[in-house]
């Protein structure tokens, strides 16, 4: 081992000390989580101890830490690669063991698997070789250049993003427009894309309140609920069409935004968050308990689906005199038509949200929101009326939440208070924060990460949320201010954006 360590910056004793410290931590953390298992025996539940897992955890921790030390202290490349390979095998070992907990241990799983047959030996060797190669070549420029190249890369990405924001946005829009053509036959892909798009729209709506105006709103789901119930109730009781109800739902939600806005005008930060949280819960509890109007926990079912702008319907069996969508365009009937139509509908709604936000940012009101986020006292002394500014942010943000809610109701065909819990607010807020407050494209990325990935990786079953949590922690470690957290001025004088960004990044 000492031959591997060519650095003189750290002594062997120090390394041992550091490793011992982390071994103890690993022991403390794993003993309760991995080390004990309740087993159902004929005599009742008993505790079984799984020392093998604990030891695996400790060993992997030690190896991982050692790899970190080696990387940190710039020790030779082969040494690093060897250690990373061993660590990878250990992690794999632990992962397999963790999945098949009933297999009581005889010898390490990896070795069992590796020596099962000739093919598996080859596979095992190939696995080790690949890991080793990746580890070896990823550390090519270990010594002095390492940190520099890292920051250079991120600076380059930043520069590329900030100078080409518009192009990236346009590309994204084109991608989402052609999406149904790529996955037109895949029902689950369209469903997932629609779901992600709902959250993108909600994220953009909340972004106005949280990202631009800086008002931390933990009850955004309330406006979503108001929109959904407005549409459901209006269409059931007054037989109004979706296209008429959509603006009404927006207006209702906006007025609820103002109702929430008034009592919280003087509040900021944590206090505002608590009140908005309470507001979100009030709406939900009212929905549960006002049985006569909302149907309480039973919700509202068989909500009318939207027609094709009042011209045609999507149903297979149609009453006399009603045109079918497929007839209108001379197509064969397909259930996908409705789904793709819904997808485009939410896409248009979301794009309207984005467009309005971008426009508002350039208008005095949008500028006033941003200024209010930065410094309320300064705003006041410049003659900006903070009451109107805040209320308009709440109202406009809520309005888009209401639109999204009406869309949600018409897509699901069934709504109940279950869909509007605090968790939804938290997810929407997380999308805005992870995306980088105020960043439109950031919201899209975060919505895909937060909503799309967990759905796509459903096969991972119980590990899904584990990986999700790890991902959140990783984002907050490496990009603590969100994925895309740059605020560029909306107007630049006598200078191109490229020059400005280049000057800043240097």
């Amino acid at each position, binding site marked *: 081992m000492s031959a591997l360590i060519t650095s003189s910056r750290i002594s062997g004793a120090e390394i041992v000390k550091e490793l011992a410290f982390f071994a103890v931590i690993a022991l403390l953390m794993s003993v309760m989580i991995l080390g004990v298992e309740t087993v159902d025996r004929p005599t009742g539940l008993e505790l079984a101890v799984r020392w093998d897992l604990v030891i695996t955890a400790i060993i992997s921790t030690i190896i991982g830490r050692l790899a970190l030390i080696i990387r940190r202290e710039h020790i030779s490349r082969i040494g690093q690669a060897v250690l990373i390979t061993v660590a990878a095998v250990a992690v794999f070992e632990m992962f397999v063991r963790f999945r098949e907990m009933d297999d009581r241990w005889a010898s390490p799983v990896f070795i069992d698997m590796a020596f099962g047959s000739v093919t598996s030996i080859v596979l095992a060797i190939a696995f080790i070789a690949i890991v080793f190669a990746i580890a070896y070549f990823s550390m090519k420029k270990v010594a002095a250049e390492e940190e520099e190249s890292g920051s250079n890369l991120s600076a380059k990405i930043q520069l590329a993003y900030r100078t080409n924001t518009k192009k990236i946005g346009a590309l994204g829009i084109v991608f989402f427009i052609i999406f149904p053509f790529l996955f037109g036959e895949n029902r689950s892909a369209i469903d997932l894309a629609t779901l992600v798009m709902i959250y993108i729209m909600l994220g953009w709506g909340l972004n106005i309140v949280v990202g631009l105006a800086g008002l931390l709103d933990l009850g955004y789901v309330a406006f979503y609920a108001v929109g959904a119930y407005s549409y459901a109730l209006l269409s059931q009781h007054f037989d109004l069409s979706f296209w008429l109800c959509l603006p009404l739902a927006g207006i209702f939600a906006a007025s609820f935004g103002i109702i929430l806005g008034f009592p919280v005008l003087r509040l900021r930060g944590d206090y505002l968050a608590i009140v908005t949280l309470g507001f979100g819960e009030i709406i939900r509890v009212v929905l549960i308990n006002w049985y006569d109007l909302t149907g309480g926990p039973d919700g509202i079912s068989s909500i009318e689906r939207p027609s094709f702008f009042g011209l045609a319907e999507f149903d297979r069996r149609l009453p006399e005199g009603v045109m079918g969508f497929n007839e209108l365009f001379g197509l064969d009937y397909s259930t996908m038509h409705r789904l793709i139509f819904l997808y485009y509908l939410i896409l248009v709604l979301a794009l309207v949200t984005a467009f309005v936000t971008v426009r508002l940012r350039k208008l005095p009101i949008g500028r006033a929101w941003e200024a209010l986020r930065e410094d309320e006292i300064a705003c*006041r002394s410049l003659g900006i009326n903070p009451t109107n500014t805040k209320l308009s942010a709440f109202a406009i943000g809520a309005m888009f939440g209401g639109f999204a809610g009406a869309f949600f109701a018409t897509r699901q065909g069934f709504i109940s208070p279950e869909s509007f819990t605090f968790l939804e607010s938290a997810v929407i807020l997380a999308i805005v924060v992870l995306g980088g407050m105020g960043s439109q494209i950031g919201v899209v990325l975060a919505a895909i990460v937060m909503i799309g990935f967990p759905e796509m990786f459903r096969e991972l079953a119980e590990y899904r949320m584990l990986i999700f949590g790890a991902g959140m922690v990783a984002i907050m470690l490496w990009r603590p201010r969100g994925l895309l957290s740059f605020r560029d001025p909306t107007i630049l004088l006598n200078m191109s954006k490229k020059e400005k960004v280049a000057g800043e990044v240097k």
Partner: protein
Amino acid sequence: MSMLKIEGVHTFYGNIEALKGIDMEVNEGEIVTLIGANGAGKTTLLMTCCGSPQASKGRILFEDQDISRMPTHEICRLGIQQSPEGRRIFPRMSVYENLQMGASTQDPKYFEEDLEMVFDLFPRLKERINQRAGTMSGGEQQMLAIGRALMGRPRLLLLDEPSLGIAPLVVKQIFETIKKINREKKVTVFLVEQNAFHALKLAHRGYVMVNGNITLSGTGAELLANPEVRAAYLEGGH
């Protein structure tokens, strides 16, 4: 003619009486300074003129209109602009956007003209126009705060400690500019300062504040020569 008239103003923070009956006057075209130690109530008086906090007793007249019960943003629309304590620029917005915010009460047709005027007074701001305001030096931020206030076309400019935390050379420059603003742009200036020497040299008249009361007043030169003022605020420094 008196532009700003403060009559028997008392201001409270909870139960603490920060201003104990202030009477003072700022005449049109003057530079008036208010000096005093830390915690004397200088900033409170300036902020009371802007309506936050509001005076609990007394009257504040701006051009014979009582403004002591008006909300801050409306007072500002009458033609009173301030560069608040600690500058309070918008750090994540660019210099240009900060100046835009300053002009938010004004008709956009004046914008270009006013922008030129501000850049004329503070050429440094023109160089930094697209920079984030928070990344500038203290002196530049102070220039921006004054420039932002000027974008609101004030007739009365309230300045709260423009010399705070700024290099002496830059302080001199800023004070020169204040003089220029007053003389050439015909803006009346009410200046709150701890830097008594510079402030009194610049001002036509001055007031001295101790523990929420005005204890002395007079022309700048008189106060500079006053032994009490010298002992309390000038000796040992400068």
